[in-house]
């Protein structure tokens, strides 16, 4: 019998031609306890199910939708799921989280995860419920946005089905296409292209029952406590302004990447700031299912309509491209959602292209920093992979720079192929390390080392051992949060993280789990991701940052100049390997590998 919160099995759906078959894969309790669920269990599944060296866009490449022990419980922010695969953008492991009813319905099909393999002969949707799997052709959905497709799917299959859907960019293989559910996106790494390569427009799930927990009364008690705490000051920023509240503050401390990382402050930032937009526009708030924070802020658009705005999409489609007109940024964000592309990768790739134009490397004279209409035009070209520029930029900045050459790789804003989020590494050197070593590539959700940079506990401009410790700490905490799964916007309410999280897991699962065990789980998940990437050809040379960031000093708004040398970063990376117990090339020991339970 599976422990509380689990079913103890994974469903593997093999799609072939016009049909699909289901296989049940039992998951031993030892593995569940070692990886929890979400990103952790997804990583283990990729080790087991992804053939070494598999082409991420081939039928053999598995795509896993992974749930967690907390999904379906009353614990706030627990209605989340992870999507895990080998990334067509990085060629390495990628995972992305999304949330809401799909997570609950997906788990209540009776599985810890649903893994999709194969390829349909026509554009189809895959349906999973207690009766098994089936494939339904849906040619009428071709070219539709995820949101429009969800409406059509509800009309055709009924409201009890929940859908994870791709947009046109996923259908045509844009390497940073997203998978969406209810307006929220599993955004990073091109998971939408993986699903699109299987000719599957959507995965639909329908709940069959309820999950049981080990101690329902105790779960209710900890859920009540967690909910109360979620209303406190640690989440005020998310409730009151949302993540866009970062923008003006980051500008004030020279951490707002601007014009493809050539500056760290943006003169147009006040126009794009949440503080300003809240005064000038109607703003609605929304939340995921089972969430008491309510971080989503949905702004009215000029000329009608609404758009949900977050820091990352505004940063990437605004300052990074030099665009300061909020209506242009709103329009670009809406276009990215409709096409189904990751806004960070889209903005980073377009900003790179703008700099190429500025340097005379790319003959697209209309594509200039500061031109919001140019961003829209570029997005349209990307979303349909139109010949020429669209095809080039649909590959992401690393592949595009490799195609264009002429030194353009030096300023392509990516790590391991994944475009960089809105945290300037030269003025946030704990974050610089976090970005460099993370298995997913340049990523702010699997490594939140910016917390340390903005804490005042270390010198954010001088990377060293304290930055290594900070980066490891946030990476470990993220590994557990992303596997339990809880929303990271809750993290500020915890003080003794692993102890408190053990206190949430224990009544759900019935395990006598403690902080030490969760710390070991964290290390194991980080190591498992690393091991997967090494298997797929990654090396220590990939744990770095773009040349520009290591060779070009950055003027700060304060008048100081921030510098991050190659030697400083290398020293931190080596310190990181050592602290992880890996060798000088970043390889885990045999004992660590054995602990991954992959045999």
């Amino acid at each position, binding site marked *: 019998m599976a422990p509380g919160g689990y079913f103890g099995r994974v469903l593997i759906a093999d799609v072939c031609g016009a049909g699909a078959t289901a296989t049940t894969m039992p998951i031993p309790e030892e593995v569940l306890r070692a990886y929890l669920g979400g990103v952790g269990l997804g990583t283990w599944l990729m080790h087991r199910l992804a053939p070494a060296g598999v082409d991420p866009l081939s039928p053999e490449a598995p795509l896993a939708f992974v749930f967690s022990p907390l999904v379906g419980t009353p614990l706030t922010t627990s209605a989340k799921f992870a999507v895990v695969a080998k990334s067509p953008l990085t060629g390495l492991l990628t995972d992305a989280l999304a949330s809401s009813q799909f997570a609950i319905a997906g788990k209540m099909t009776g599985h810890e995860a649903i893994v999709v393999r194969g390829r349909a002969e026509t554009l189809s949707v895959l349906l999973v419920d207690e009766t098994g799997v089936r494939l339904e052709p849906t040619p009428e959905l071709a070219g539709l946005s995820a949101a429009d497709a969800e409406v059509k799917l509800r009309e055709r299959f009924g409201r009890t089905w929940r859908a994870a859907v791709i947009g046109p960019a996923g259908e045509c293989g844009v390497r940073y296409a997203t998978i969406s559910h209810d307006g929220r996106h599993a955004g990073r790494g091109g998971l939408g292209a993986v699903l699109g390569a299987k000719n599957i427009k959507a995965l639909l799930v329908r709940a069959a029952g309820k999950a049981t927990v080990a101690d329902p009364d105790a779960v209710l008690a900890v859920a009540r406590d967690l909910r109360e705490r979620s209303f406190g000051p*640690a989440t005020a920023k998310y409730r009151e302004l949302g993540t*866009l509240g970062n923008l003006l503050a980051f500008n004030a401390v020279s951490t707002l990447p601007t014009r493809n990382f050539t500056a760290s402050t943006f003169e147009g930032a006040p126009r794009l700031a*949440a503080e300003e937009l809240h005064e000038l526009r109607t703003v609605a708030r929304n939340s995921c299912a089972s969430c008491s924070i309510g971080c989503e802020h949905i702004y009215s658009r000029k000329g009608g309509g609404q758009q949900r705005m977050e820091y990352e999409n505004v940063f990437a489609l605004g300052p990074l491209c030099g665009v300061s007109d909020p209506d242009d940024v709103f329009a670009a964000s809406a276009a990215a959602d409709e096409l189904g592309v990751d806004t960070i990768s889209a903005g980073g790739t377009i900003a790179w292209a703008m700099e190429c134009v500025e340097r005379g490397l790319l003959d697209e004279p209309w594509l200039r920093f500061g031109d919001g209409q140019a961003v829209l035009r570029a997005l349209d070209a990307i979303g349909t992979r139109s010949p020429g520029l669209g095809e080039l930029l649909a590959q992401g900045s690393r592949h595009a720079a490799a195609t264009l050459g002429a030194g353009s790789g030096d300023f392509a804003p990516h790590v391991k192929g994944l475009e960089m989020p809105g945290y300037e590494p030269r003025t946030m050197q704990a974050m610089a390390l976090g970005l460099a070593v993370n298995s997913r590539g340049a990523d702010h959700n699997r490594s939140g080392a910016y*917390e340390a940079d903005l804490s005042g506990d270390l010198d954010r401009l001088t990377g060293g051992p304290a930055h290594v410790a900070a980066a490891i700490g946030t990476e470990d905490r993220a590994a557990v949060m992303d596997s339990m799964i809880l929303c990271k916007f809750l993290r500020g309410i915890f003080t003794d993280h692993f102890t408190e999280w053990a206190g949430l897991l224990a009544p759900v699962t019935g395990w006598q789990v403690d902080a030490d065990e969760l710390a070991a789980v964290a290390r194991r998940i980080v190591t498992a991701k690393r091991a997967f990437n090494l298997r797929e050809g990654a090396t220590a040379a990939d744990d770095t940052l773009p040349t520009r960031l290591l060779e070009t000093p950055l003027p700060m*708004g304060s008048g100081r100049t921030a510098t991050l040398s190659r030697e400083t970063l290398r020293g931190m990376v080596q310190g990181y390997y050592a602290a992880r117990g890996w060798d000088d090339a970043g390889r885990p020991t045999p004992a660590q590998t054995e602990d991954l339970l992959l045999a």
Partner: protein
Amino acid sequence: MDAAGIVLAGGRSSRMGTPKAALEWHGSTLLHRTAALLARSLSGPVVVVAAPGQELPPLPSGVRIAFDPVEGRGPMQGVAVGLAAVAGEAETAFVTSTDLPFLHPAFVHRVLEVLQTSPADVALPFARGYRQPLAAAYRIGLAALIAKLLTEGENRPGQVYRHCEVRVVEEAELLADADLARLDPDLDSVFNVNEPADYAAARARPAPQIVVECFGALVGADRPRKQTVAAATLGSAADAIGLALNAHVVAALNGDRITRDPGLPLVTGDAVAFLSADAGG
């Protein structure tokens, strides 16, 4: 600025009648303010030089103590001990006594800039009618020379200066620096408190005017985004706008240093940004 800071705390304070290092200054002490001022101004180490066995008030985090092995040899002994304590960690140091309550970072930077752009061993301000050997910049390598001269009985600054290259910096040259001219036009940086009346007068001066800006959720109906307050420390700036410097709030000083230290001294020209510490997104 890339240099060390040295604070001489071991003076006898005979005219003051009580140890000057421990005099109250806006919630902390004069010594704390001076050491913290150097720490916020310089990227190198900051060392407080104390007399043998001297009890010191609490110091800012990271500030080190070097005890003078010999008492009564005068300030150049303290300079030598301080320079020796930071050998190998910086090329130059700003040396100050503990009793300059209005020392401004712009003054520190200007004097160090003069030294760092000249071949001299010492940049010696001549301000408010006096040479200022304890508001001056020294090359770290002078430690051995000064120590040797002290053993030979040459323990006054003027005697030491005869053996090295001294660059005297007149007021006009100091004030040629636009920042210093704007922020400390009267060179109050070298105003020292020797007697109780000096201290009372200094303490009676209003705190500097600080531009305070709040971001995100810290802005409220009774807390505007931007305002100017009188505050000598970060803690008093937060108090002035009704903000608790707790785990959920950090401050950025002049868009640069991130801190939660309520004892951080503030000076004329400072701008403080209060941010939410929960910065993710």
